[in-house]
């Protein structure tokens, strides 16, 4: 029997009435007995069936909708969101290419690239590559000559290149460029609408400059270039034009010695004698404006503190009290000197106001206190004292007059120096037969060795707080040495004869 009603595909669209109609029609043909169902039951069942299917399809739709919703964030915005929080503290790979030389002589008067390379190396933040050129492939000295892909393959991030040109008898023109090897493939114009943000990698030249200098200033020009390179790549000012002051002791005939107060470049080059004497000179200290040096001299037979104006080359007597006058330390504002006097029987630290000569005693008690060093905010002093029985490092809060002990280990801790950021103090710590430079973080209270197994003395921080200069006894000679805080660069400064002691880094 052909069914009257054609089976509909989508039973879910049927209404109740339809279903009743269908079922009543079907009832005529369905034998009652075989299924044992009343026509009502059949109809209801068919309706149930249809509704169930409707529910199922609805469920399917809802499910797909929900799934689609979960995908929405990923599908609706075009970009994938990532967060990068961890990187490396590796050294930046750069190469300093030999500067081109344009002049009548065969060799340039000074190899500027060597000085720049040495400076960058001493900072401990750069991985310097040795770039060799061949006649077939000479090294570039203009930005236009650089084959970026080639240099990138060597794993370098930046290049320093330049040229030195002789201009007349005593004059030279120095130009240099610091080039970033990584630039975008597509150069997007800054004004284009496609450029939602700015595109810093469009111009590869990070820094470039031209100097015109005399022969004597060539060395300084190289240091200035190194400063600019450092500033661009690290973000803080370079310290390669900074100076150090130290005492040079030379043995003369018999027991006599010659003492000289020396000022040199931070890498020990170009030392200049400020003054020389057959009587001891000690404890040079730079004023914050780097124009004056304070020092202790025994030239009158007894110790006295003087200041030497480096520009006017004049000397001024500051303190010559009875007994010890020593260890001058400038306050950060340059108006006061912390000095050690023993006029009241024991070595104590006093504050001398330079404008009116007023003396204020800072430390009290029976012990000997010496070697003061100011914090950069001028609020406290660190010094060495034997008030606990052995020499240890203490910190004096100038406002509250409270003294706290900083060195907690060992029986001999001397020569403290505050870091420029005021977060750490560096001093000499004795362990067994070695006197090592250690650094203590004032916040974490952790002490860390910078040198190991050396005979070190009088450490002083660099202007950017990244490294320390100190005097070390090697093979019977006292020499100056540089060490970075990370310890990855340790360098002895060149020294011929004589002992170099008590360095102070401006």
């Amino acid at each position: 029997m052909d069914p009257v009603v054609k089976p509909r595909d989508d039973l879910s669209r049927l209404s109740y009435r339809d279903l009743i109609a269908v079922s009543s029609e079907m009832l005529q043909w369905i034998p009652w007995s075989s299924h044992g169902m009343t026509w009502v039951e059949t109809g209801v069942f068919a309706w149930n069936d249809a509704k169930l299917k409707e529910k199922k399809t609805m469920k399917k739709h809802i499910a797909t909708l929900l799934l689609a919703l979960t995908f929405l964030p990923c599908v609706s915005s075009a970009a994938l969101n990532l967060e990068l929080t961890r990187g490396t503290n590796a050294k930046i790979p750069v190469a300093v290419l030999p500067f081109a030389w344009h002049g009548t002589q065969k060799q340039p008067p000074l190899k500027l690239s060597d000085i720049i390379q040495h400076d960058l190396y001493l900072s401990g933040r750069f991985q310097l590559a040795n770039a060799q050129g061949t006649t077939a492939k000479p090294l570039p000295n203009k930005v236009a000559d650089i084959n970026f892909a080639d240099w990138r393959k060597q794993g370098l991030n930046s290049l320093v290149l330049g040229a030195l040109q002789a201009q007349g008898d005593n004059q030279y023109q120095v130009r240099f460029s610091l080039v970033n090897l990584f630039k975008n493939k597509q150069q997007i114009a800054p004004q284009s609408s496609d450029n939602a943000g700015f595109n810093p990698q469009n111009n590869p030249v990070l820094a470039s400059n031209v100097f015109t200098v005399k022969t004597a200033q060539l060395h300084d020009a190289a240091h200035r270039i190194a400063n600019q390179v450092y500033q661009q790549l690290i973000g803080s000012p370079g310290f390669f034009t900074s100076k150090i002051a130290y005492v040079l002791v030379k043995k003369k005939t018999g027991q006599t010695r010659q003492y000289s107060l020396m000022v040199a470049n931070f890498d020990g080059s170009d030392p200049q004698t400020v003054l020389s004497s057959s009587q001891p000179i000690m404890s040079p200290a730079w004023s914050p404006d780097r124009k004056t040096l304070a020092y202790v001299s025994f030239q009158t037979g007894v110790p006295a503190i003087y200041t030497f104006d480096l520009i006017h080359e004049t000397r001024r007597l500051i303190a010559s009290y009875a007994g010890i006058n020593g260890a001058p330390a400038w306050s950060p504002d340059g108006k006061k000197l912390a000095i050690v006097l023993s006029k009241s029987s024991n070595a104590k630290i006093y504050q001398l106001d330079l404008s009116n000569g007023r003396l204020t005693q800072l430390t009290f008690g029976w012990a000997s206190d010496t070697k003061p060093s100011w914090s950069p905010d001028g609020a406290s002093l660190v010094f060495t004292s034997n008030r606990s029985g052995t020499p240890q490092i203490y910190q004096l809060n100038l406002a509250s007059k409270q003294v706290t002990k900083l060195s907690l280990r060992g029986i001999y801790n001397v020569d403290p120096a505050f870091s420029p950021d005021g977060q750490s103090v560096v001093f000499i710590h004795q362990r067994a037969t070695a006197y090592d430079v250690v650094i203590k973080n004032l916040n974490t209270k952790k002490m860390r060795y910078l040198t190991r197994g050396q005979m070190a003395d009088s450490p002083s921080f660099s202007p950017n707080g990244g490294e320390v200069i100190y005097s070390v006894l090697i093979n019977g000679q006292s020499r100056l040495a540089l060490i970075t805080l990370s310890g990855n660069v340790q360098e002895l400064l060149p020294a011929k004869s004589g002992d170099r002691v008590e360095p102070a880094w401006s």
Partner: protein
Amino acid sequence: MIFKRRRQHSVLSFLLSFVIHLFIIGFLLTGAGYWYHMDQAKASADKKAASRPIVKAVAVNQSVVENQIRAIKTRAKMKLEKQLAWQAHLQQMAEQAVAKKTGAEQHLAELQKENQQVKQLTEKMQDKARAQLAYLRALQAQAEAKLNMLQAQQKAIETQNTAISKKMLLTQKAIANEQSSRQKAALQARLQKEQAKQAALKQQQLFNQLSKYKTLILNDIGKQWIIPPGAKKNVSCKLLVDLDAMGRVMNVKVLVSSGDPVLDRSAVTAVLKASPLPLPKIPALLKQFKQIELTVKPEGLLNEEVNLS
């Protein structure tokens, strides 16, 4: 018998005795005996000489003799001087040899010292290299650990998937064989559930792949990122990175600067240096990696998550 002699005062006997005494004294004083003895000796010597052969004596010129003597003297002098000179030469050679030896010893000592220093330096560098290697290995291990976890998840998903597929197949078979519509409905319901589960598993799989490639990309960029030493920890910059289908970085823009141009540049350089980035092969996922919005925040170093003891 004792003769009684008449004492004769004889002057003659006195004179005679006096002369004899004088004679004897004179004889003694002048040493005539000595001379006589010498004469005798000479005579005997002459006699002896006379018995020897006669030497033919030639008369020689005085100056020639003197010259010869002078010549011999100078020769002897020269010989002496030569000997002295040779001795001096030998001494000098001996001294030079000693100096050379000490010089060589010093040089050797210096070389040894230099060697020692170089050895120490190489040891230091080796130590550093070893430390760096260990650190990189640790990094790799960490990344691998993450990826392994994702891989394990992927495997679990796949086993679940196969199980579900099997179930679905059985259910479908059962549906085909089932006559009763009620049972059929129940089986259909079950099939729906299984299908839904399979769809969910597929979603999870895609999500898993997404995480995997996100991890790989962040790892690659992080390895190249040299954080500037002065960078503050609470600043961040946002970059927009355009990639092509092969993962090559086409363009990097700074959408939001951190305020520190050196930090921005370090991040951009890291992204460019890490090119080409690893991308998934599934097209559905690949199209999501066309552009990446990268927020860069210097929170710490890669190895700080790793315990390098």
